[in-house]
């Protein structure tokens, strides 16, 4: 039972990382990918 909690917690971290990074890439401070590359 304890193991499944770890799995869900890890998934929460993973989902937050993917979600936040994707949203920041869309609306984030740098705005567009090319600003960083320029």
């Amino acid at each position, binding site marked *: 039972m304890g193991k499944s909690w*770890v*799995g*869900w*917690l*890890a*998934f929460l*971290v*993973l*989902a937050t*990382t*993917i*979600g936040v*990074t*994707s*949203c*920041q*890439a*869309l*609306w*984030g*401070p*740098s705005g*567009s*990918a*090319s*600003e*960083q*590359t320029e």
Partner: protein
Amino acid sequence: MSAERYGGAFSPGGATNADKQASPAAGNRFRGRKARKVDVRGLLLFVLPTPLLFAGLGNIGAGDVVGAAINLAAYASLILGAWLLREGQRAEAAYDARAVAKPPAFPRKLVAAVLAADGIGLAAYFGWGQDILTAAVFSVLTIASHIAAFGLDPMKPKGIDLDDAEASRVSEALDKAEAKIAEIAELARSTRDREIENRVETMLAAVRDMLRQIEADPRDLTRARRYLSVYLVGAHEATRKYAENHEDLGDSALRDDYLLLIGDLEQSFAEGHDKLLQDDRTDLEIEIEVLRERLGQDRT
């Protein structure tokens, strides 16, 4: 009290009383099959990177080619990772369902974790504009949480010793038979005929019973060789030809012949399975007898 399914002689799958007595197809066609698990978490991984797709499309609209390429590459990497994870979970389910199995040849779940980390690294560094160290930390966090959440691929062979050529041969024969079963089921579905689908599934359930029996006692493979190399291949050929030609020919007599063949094959597989069980019982009886005789000799 027993319930009987509603339906007459002309209902789909309906059979007359005489048919019911003659056909052993009353077995459950889902016997020996496991329901496929749907992992909501795995599906969410397809949805979560969607903003990256919009970011890439927005870049194209703004004429920013480099930005679009990077955002779309990050999106593609995450989606490819999610797809590989799903394939890895399917391979793992197939591995778990078998008593004798080799590990999947390609570590799909591990590569899925690497692809997710790669996508996040790209999106964090270029899209979000974080420094390289932060992007690297995000990548490591992604790979670690991915492995903790979904685990790694099975790495060890199960129920067999790879040095043992005989066991390896059994595993290969089972793999081939499973592949043939999947192809036959797919061909039957392509006929879009519910009765044929049901009858073929019932026959395949009998084949699966036989495969489980071989898994339990790999010595049975030699005895079952005729069933797997002649009957199963014959069933595959007949189903393929029927699926390819039934629409052009439109011949109901051909359909009846095909159904009869499937019924006969199912009966043969069921009898074969019973025979294997009986042989195992005989083997065990002989072993017990021999041991008892030896014990008797040692006592005297």
